[in-house]
């Protein structure tokens, strides 16, 4: 599904943000990436989505190397990757349903969507995705009126409307209270397991990683410190990850 091979990124300043980074996310698997501030977690996601162009390495999604593509071909290939952000990324003045349905825009022509809107079955599908995240009654509500937790669930529903094979989440619970954070993680786990979606989630909350991840990747100074199934992950290894970051 998603395979990252020897990915490296060097900034124009010369700083090496990622070095020979490799990982794999399988269908139905929730992989959590842990690491301190500036360790390269978000940079990794940006390289995978190609919002940053890696200096070296490959990102394979369903047999297509995203790093070898540009322009329209890259856009098409990237449709299989959905992203959920740390900050609320909804269009606040449109309805919740319109926000969710906008995840399907990339599959339709510009002329069609601008002048005729999305087809009715896409709107129905958007309602179903809203129901999946438990927010069906809020379909007509303005997105700007939602709480942080609700907004994040709508963002996940929008990602589902994209019909991705892999869902990337960059600290999706960073600004949420503990209860809302648990809700989001439960939802990501459910989507991974029941929809056979590959989920790669960057987190700062170690306890959430222990509770929900199938596999945990530790990242330190742009390199993999460990890549272990949750059952094999020791608290000492995680502590070491953050201690060495502090050092």
């Amino acid at each position, binding site marked *: 599904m998603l395979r990252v091979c020897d990915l490296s990124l060097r900034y124009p300043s010369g700083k090496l943000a990622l070095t020979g980074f490799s990982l794999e996310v399988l269908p139905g698997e929730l992989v959590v990436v842990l690491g301190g501030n500036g360790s390269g977690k978000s940079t990794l996601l940006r390289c995978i*989505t190609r*919002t940053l162009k890696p200096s070296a390495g490959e990102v394979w999604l369903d047999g297509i190397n995203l790093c070898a593509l540009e322009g329209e071909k890259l*856009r*098409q290939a*990237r*449709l299989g*990757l*959905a*992203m959920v*952000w740390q*900050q*609320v*990324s*909804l*269009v*606040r*003045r*449109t309805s919740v349903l*319109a926000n969710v349905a*906008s*995840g399907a*825009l*990339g*599959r339709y022509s*510009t002329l069609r*969507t*601008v002048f005729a809107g999305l087809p009715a079955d896409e709107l129905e599908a958007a309602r179903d995705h809203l129901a999946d995240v438990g927010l069906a009654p809020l379909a007509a509500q303005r997105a700007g009126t939602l709480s942080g937790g609700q907004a994040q669930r709508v*963002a996940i529903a*929008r*990602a589902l409307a*994209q019909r991705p094979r892999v869902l990337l989440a960059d600290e999706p619970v960073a600004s949420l209270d503990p209860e809302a954070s648990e809700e989001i993680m439960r939802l990501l786990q459910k989507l991974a397991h029941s929809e056979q979606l590959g989920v790669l989630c960057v987190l700062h909350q170690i306890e959430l990683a222990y509770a929900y991840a199938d596999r945990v990747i530790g990242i330190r100074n742009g390199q993999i410190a460990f890549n272990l199934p949750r059952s094999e992950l020791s608290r000492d290894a995680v502590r070491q990850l953050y201690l060495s970051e502090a050092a």
Partner: protein
Amino acid sequence: MSVDAAQAGAGGVRGPGNSSGSNSGTWGGAVGTAIRFVLILLGIGIVVQTFIVVEARPQDLITGVHGMADLIRRAVPPDFSKLPAAVWPTLQTIDIALFGTMVGVIIAVPLAMLAASNVTPSRLAYYIARAIIGLARAVPDLVWALLFVTAVGLGPFPGGLALGVHSVGMLGRLFAETIEQMDMAPIHALELTGARRIQVFSHGIIPTILPSLLGISLYRLDENIRSSLVLGFVGAGGIGFQLLTAMNLFQYQEVSLLLIIIFVIVLAAERLSAALRAHLD
């Protein structure tokens, strides 16, 4: 350091260093006072030179009060029999402003997309769009009206065109600034869903900034109604042209009627625009 020692260091002992510090304080105060004095003189100088340059003669206001009173006496009562004849020019004036605003909005929106640094497709497009907006804004609407009167002749059409072009400049700049100030997180998120540039524009940018765009456009319409009155003076039709004609023919009672109509139009446009903008907020 003990408290006593600290006090001594701070001024308890008067040595050469302390003395010089005190002098420096005095000099600082003197320089500050001198700067304030110069600034006050400069301010007075600016005010005086404006009186000289505009050849201000306040005494003429007193000696000329008879002329003003005579003008007002001849202007009352307003000649309401001319009201039916003023209806069409009034409609023309309003429609010149509406036409100019619509043309301005239609051209300014895509131009602002190119002229907003955060969404422009290229630096070249950015500079070209900024240049067009700058040119449209820099040339006053009155000059545009004179140019268009020369090109297409007298009447409301050149007035509408003049306001349209000038509005492109004003609206283009304000729209671009609005786009530059908007929250880009939803836009980046939409881009990553695979939406194309125009889809991001129609489903992300426009809904986000629509209330601001409408508010700015309504404000511009309000401004254009005032401007369209003046444009009539250079032959661009509307009630302004009728006002000029009445003044030239010394028909002061008609002038006062037209001034009442202008007052009502301007006030109504201002109130309507303010009410609609309040509704948008």
